[in-house]
């Protein structure tokens, strides 16, 4: 059994949050550079230019990329030969989240659902984090993190189709979701699609799909082809950067597919804004 100090996890989580708040990941930056070059609309081109200038300022001056510094979302794979010394792993991740958001002057965006009271002074600064755990073999902890903003989350949807809907039904549904969203989720977007599983499995898969690096290939050739088809369909909608009209509405489409019940075809579409702040560490 390998023992990892509670404080080591806190520190690692804190550091990844601070880094992600100000430094746009390279995969996203590179994809935006290509999008700016290829965009046909001058207005949208200028918007992407501003987005890249913003990323440079944020990195150089250590300022948050966006005022919506998100809810902290984690996918954690815990090795079955790991023990946290001095506390619970969940508590360490929450503590690291609070420290990172406080120390980097990121915004506390969690609130009570109905009174809308900010939870920073009661539950903790930008707490609780959203954490999805999985147990795997080994003596390491693998932590994937993303800061998930509200604008793109608000246009995300899930639905359980009858199996007859097939691929075509899913493609039409994704187009409908993105078309209705227009400029609200801050395009150029990344679209995460969870297919199969159960209602909640599809939703979690669509979230996890957004953690994949833009420009990486889907290991499943059938899904890889479907990603390309949907990407083209989305870019033909004409929404453009910030909805101002253009040819680059999405940077990428990522699909995660799971086996499902013989009666169902669950689909979830989770949208990520252009400020795709995600990172990954192994302890």
């Amino acid at each position, binding site marked *: 059994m390998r023992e990892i100090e509670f404080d080591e996890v806190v520190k690692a989580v804190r550091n990844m949050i601070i880094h992600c708040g*100000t430094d746009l990941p390279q995969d996203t930056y590179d994809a935006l550079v290509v999008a700016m070059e290829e965009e*046909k*609309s001058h*207005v*949208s081109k200028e*918007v992407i230019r*501003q*987005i890249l*200038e*913003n990323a440079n*300022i*944020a990195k150089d*001056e*250590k*300022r*948050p*990329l*966006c*005022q*919506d*510094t998100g809810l902290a979302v984690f996918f954690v794979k815990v090795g079955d030969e790991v023990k946290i010394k001095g506390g619970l792993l969940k508590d360490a991740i929450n503590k690291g989240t609070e420290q990172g958001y406080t120390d980097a*002057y*990121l*915004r*506390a*965006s969690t609130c009570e659902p109905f009174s*809308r009271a*900010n939870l*920073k002074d009661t539950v903790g600064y930008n707490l609780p984090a959203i954490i999805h755990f999985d147990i795997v073999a080994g003596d390491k902890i693998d932590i994937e993190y993303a800061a998930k*903003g*509200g*604008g793109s989350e*608000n246009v995300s949807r899930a639905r359980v189709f009858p199996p007859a809907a097939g691929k075509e039904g899913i493609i039409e549904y994704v187009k409908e979701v993105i078309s209705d969203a*227009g*400029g*609200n989720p*801050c395009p150029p977007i990344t679209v995460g699609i969870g297919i199969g599983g159960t209602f909640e499995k599809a939703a979690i898969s669509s979230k996890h799909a957004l953690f994949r690096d833009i420009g990486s290939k889907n290991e499943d050739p059938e899904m890889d082809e479907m990603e390309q088809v949907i990407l083209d369909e989305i870019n*033909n*909608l*004409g*929404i*453009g950067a*910030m*909805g*101002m*009209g*253009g*040819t680059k509405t999405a940077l990428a489409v990522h699909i995660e597919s799971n086996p499902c019940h013989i009666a169902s075809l669950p689909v979830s579409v989770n949208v990520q*804004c*252009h*400020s795709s702040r995600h990172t990954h560490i192994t302890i």
Partner: protein
Amino acid sequence: MAKTYYLTTPLSSEDTRALKSGDIVYISGTIFTARDAAHKRLVELIEKGEELPFDIEGSVIYFVGPTPPKPGDPIGSAGPTTSYRMDSYSPIMLEHGSKGMIGKGKRSQEVKDACKMYDGIYFGATGGAGALLGKKIKSAEVIAYPELGPEAVRKLEVENFPVTVINDTYGNDLYQMGREMYEVK
């Protein structure tokens, strides 16, 4: 063809009627921040006939909830939030003299109609460009509802704050116009 304008607040009807959807505008002067929670309270004050925490005549309202400032800075990152959440409040603000709104994303027909009726403009700023836009803000002061945290009403002094005209006073909508131009059917 889109034009570029440099305007100083407060805005007059003469200022706003000159603008067309797609024009680029650099705003300087005083603007006020408000999101959903603050709008709810401001509209309640208007309905009760009570005084607002700022002069609404010719005002520009920025839909933003900034990050906390780093020591020595007036404000943190401060890009626009999604505007539709203010749709039910904006027509009342425009009716009572406000002339401009800065946000992101499409507005309701009621807001577009109110822009036509009261010479209002809906400006779009680049969402997610909070570091760049925050630097255009030279000072910030909370003037109402500090308990709302990031959602409090702030008085901002801005210099050449870059925005694009989305909805003008003639009923045009850049989101519709732009999309129709690039949609492949």
